[in-house]
């Protein structure tokens, strides 16, 4: 197992190189000039040229790529062209926001999705099955931005129950440790901040959970239906086991592999930054950060962020693969 994990981590190196070449060349292929976007419309050609020289944008692409990768190898993600801040610290401030949102959304999606899928499968063709599966179809087809806007309209504007944007109200004090506000408020025993952070999380979290929840519910249902037909389920019933043991242990554990795959993939996608959700709810996460950077041609920010997202994606997949072995003893990783 340890060998396997080391092997997988080593295989990150070619992935990182591949992703870096791809993101680097794509960024430079797209027309647009960082100098122009920084200095604005009225800048003279001389000013632009001076800035380009300062940012090393006139070097050949290979040299620029070499410089970038050289820095990456030493752990330096460079600094933003636009804000002059270090990319590492900017991402460091935003990644926890995205992670918190993703963890929350995925928890909702997994709990509700798996439960709905199991019940729908056990009571196939019942009203619950029909209702939850049409709901799931509705969920996957729902444009998130529209759902988000409707939620803000209903819960913030009309009912005034939940805050429409941000992570924490201005008047709330919170000592940050992990920068995951829910976790920090628990660690510092700050009940007020916990409730406030949760209220801010609810709408973006649920909006973000909608699609994964629907996919997980449908996958769980079809996988459970398949498993419930197996001989060992008949054996479990013939042994006189309680119905919930048969369903939630014997069947669900067997049905969990395809569901786990979907969860892993969705998790990776969401961690990459839920651009739309973060934009609608003004959530200070990675997704919005990278989109802003793309628009202003902030090369170091875009490249570094894409690299980090790629690494996270690979790690999530590695964790998924390791989890397989916990669910199915027949799977050996070596």
């Amino acid at each position, binding site marked *: 197992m340890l060998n396997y994990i080391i092997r997988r981590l080593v295989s990150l190196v070619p992935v990182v190189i591949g992703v870096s070449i791809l993101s680097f060349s794509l960024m430079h292929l797209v027309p647009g000039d960082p100098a122009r976007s920084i200095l604005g419309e009225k800048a003279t050609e001389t000013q632009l040229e001076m800035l380009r020289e300062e940012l090393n944008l006139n070097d050949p692409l290979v040299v620029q790529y070499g410089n970038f990768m050289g820095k990456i190898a030493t752990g330096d993600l460079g600094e933003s062209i636009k804000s002059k801040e270090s990319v590492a610290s900017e991402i460091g401030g935003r990644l926890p926001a995205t992670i918190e949102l993703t963890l929350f959304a995925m928890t909702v999606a997994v709990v509700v999705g798996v439960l709905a899928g199991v019940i729908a499968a056990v009571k196939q063709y019942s009203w619950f099955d029909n209702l939850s599966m049409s709901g799931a179809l509705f969920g996957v087809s729902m444009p998130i931005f529209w759902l988000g806007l409707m939620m803000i309209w209903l819960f913030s504007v009309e009912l005034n129950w939940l805050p429409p944007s941000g992570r924490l109200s201005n008047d709330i004090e919170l000592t940050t440790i992990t920068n995951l506000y829910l976790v920090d408020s628990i660690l510092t025993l700050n009940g007020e901040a916990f409730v406030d952070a949760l209220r801010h999380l609810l709408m973006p979290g649920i909006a973000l959970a909608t699609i994964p929840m629907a996919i997980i519910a449908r996958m769980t249902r079809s996988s459970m239906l398949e498993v419930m037909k*197996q*001989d*060992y389920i*008949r*054996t*479990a*019933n*013939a*042994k*006189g*086991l*309680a*119905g919930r*043991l048969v369903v939630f*242990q*014997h069947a669900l*554990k*067997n049905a969990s592999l395809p569901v786990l795959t979907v969860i892993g993939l969705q998790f990776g996608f969401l961690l990459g930054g839920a651009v739309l959700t973060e934009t609608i709810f003004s959530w200070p996460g990675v997704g919005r950060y990278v989109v802003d950077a793309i628009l202003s041609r902030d090369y170091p920010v875009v490249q570094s962020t894409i690299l980090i997202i790629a690494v996270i994606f690979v790690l999530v997949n590695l964790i998924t693969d390791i989890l397989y072995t916990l*669910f*199915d*003893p*027949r799977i050996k990783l070596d």
Partner: protein
Amino acid sequence: MADHLPILEVKDLHTHFFTKAGTVKAVDGVSFSVKPGETLGIVGESGSGKSITAMSVMKLVPSPPGKIVSGDIRFNGESLLLKKEKEMRKIRGKDISMIFQDPMTSLNPVFSVEKQMMETILTHENMNKQQARNRAIELLDLVGIPDAAKRLKNYPHEFSGGMRQRVMIAMALACNPKVLIADEPTTALDVTIQAQILDLLKKLQQELGMAIIMITHDLGVVAEVCDRVMVMYAGKPVEFSSVKELFDHPKHPYTWGLLSSIPQIHNRKERLEAIKGLPPDLRDLAKGCSFAPRCTHVKEECLTKDPALLEDETDHFVRCLLYEQEEKVIIHE
């Protein structure tokens, strides 16, 4: 044996499946009983209703579409059909347990043998975990699995087919059942392993005194282990007698067909005889004897008249018009 009352009695059982394409009468008037220590064989082709009979006794017929529509199943004098699902779960695996055809798929692949055995024991017996574990080891020992304490930790895929069937048997015997239903327990196994498993079942029956219902399509298995045998065709029993009677004086043309399709060592023929044709579609059975279209002794009246179950003085039942004119038979139904 004769002075015992039957432990399980099935009376005129009808289990039907209500599908969009029509009603399938999978079990259509089956009656039998077994006494403690006795082995009853139920024989027939695929689709003759033998497995559904067994599932009906366990009340595990998938519903919908299946339903026990009439008849009675009495265990220890009590009707199982009146019992609620919760009460049935107390009987399944404890008083009546079951082993299945394919040991490769009948054990749950993601749980260890230990967990699967212990959960049966803990469900039904008042034991703590350590006692249950000891009981599980004892059972694996009983069914002849070497190094039981160590093997208990293994997963099903780490056992061979024969060993898995032994695990299934150990699990079925965990709570000393009164009735063991064995649904083609040797069909999926190598021939040498088949004999071992049958010997094991016979030996365990002598030690534990349970009744066995042996469901099989193999008359060789019947000859090996059964005391009495019921031959089923298209959901109905067509012949019912002691095993010796059945092999010495088979009466039903279908039984003749089954017997002549077994290879005989003393009577070598170039080809084995097969019963021509296919079992009927149980959805729309024509009037008359269901076997008539495949029968070598078919008469005109077989196509129009339902044969009754006839009994002769040797407790030998047969459902065939060939015997209706005989003087000594009692006509049932």
